[in-house]
């Protein structure tokens, strides 16, 4: 009979498992532009375990210290894209970022860049949603696969591969927040919208390529991307908007059909 020896926990890990939780300082940016209130930081001492996420720490503050902290959240599992914010200076999802990953006893949370602030950590997504809608994020074609006489549109795994990663976008806005062009050009479509345009252009069921290319071929469209690549770096779902933009440019330059 095989005997499996359970490794003895080291002294350090014993402390981690059985000891008191660590305490960190959570600095939350507080502001209310509608009342002319400038941004200032509120600091809170939060007990954390190794699995505590930044969102959980913020919710701990709301439950125990100050319920007026404004934060948008919903699913707590990186599916809804609601809790995007700047965590220690980098755009990230609060529910998907563990405090233990940050390797710091001080965690600073701020609202995302390049979005108008509603209050504290909540930002206005109006422009992101409107740019997303502008890209016509649906399959455009005359016929339909739901009418009785029609058939399912067949796609090979290779066809699917062309756009699959771009369909994982959860519209969290982190890419737009990290984009240096968005910081100066408020009319820029942004990496989120452009990546969604590519997602449908690359879908072989779609017939709206020319329509979408016309929309992105604007003075504040696809050509304003400087390929900094920060959008792809911060995406929590592994979408690569910078690549989508370059591939979309290929259609406009005539390299791709």
């Amino acid at each position: 009979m095989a005997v499996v020896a359970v490794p003895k926990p080291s002294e350090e890990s014993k402390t981690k498992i059985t000891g008191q939780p660590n305490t960190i300082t959570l600095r939350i940016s507080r502001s209310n532009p509608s009342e002319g209130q400038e941004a200032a930081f509120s600091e809170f001492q939060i007990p954390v375990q190794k699995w505590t996420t930044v969102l959980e720490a913020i919710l701990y503050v709301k439950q125990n210290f100050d319920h007026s902290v404004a934060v948008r959240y919903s699913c707590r599992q990186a599916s809804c894209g609601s809790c995007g914010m700047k965590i220690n200076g980098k755009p990230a999802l609060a529910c998907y970022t563990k405090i233990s990953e940050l390797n710091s006893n001080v965690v600073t949370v701020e609202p995302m860049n390049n979005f108008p602030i509603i209050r504290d950590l909540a930002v206005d997504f109006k422009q992101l949603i409107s740019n997303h809608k502008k890209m016509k994020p649906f399959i455009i074609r005359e016929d339909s696969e739901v009418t009785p006489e029609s058939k399912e549109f067949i796609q090979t795994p290779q066809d699917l591969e062309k756009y699959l990663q771009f369909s994982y976008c959860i519209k969290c806005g982190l890419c737009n927040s990290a984009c240096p062009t968005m910081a100066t050009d408020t009319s820029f479509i942004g990496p989120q919208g452009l990546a969604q345009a590519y997602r449908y252009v690359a879908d072989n069921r779609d017939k709206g390529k020319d329509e979408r290319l016309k929309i992105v071929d604007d003075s504040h469209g696809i050509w304003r991307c400087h390929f900094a690549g920060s959008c792809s770096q911060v995406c929590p779902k592994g979408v690569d908007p910078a690549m989508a933009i370059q591939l979309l440019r290929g259609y406009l330059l005539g390299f791709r059909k």
Partner: protein
Amino acid sequence: MRESIIMKIHYGTALGAVALVAVHILMRMSQKFSDSLQYQNVIANYHFLPYALMLEVLLILLSVHGFNGLRVILLELKQGSTYEKMINYGSLAAMAILIAYGSRTILMAGMGVS
């Protein structure tokens, strides 16, 4: 004009300018650099028609590329329809003025007018 056409012109003029600037530098290297800047040698360049034409093309490529680049930078700095119109027409005018002024220099030097 669609932005993609403008950007194709932008990339094309960049490639063309790189090639012609390379020729221009190589021509300087055909003799000692200080000799290449002697008055007679410089004037001789303008009297040599193919080289004068190359300088004219280089002037056009650099003006178009440079002012379009400036237009792009200015459009990213500030937005607004009046401002954008002003920048678009302003950069076109600047291109035309620079090309006209440079062409005048090339023509005058080529014809021996000082």
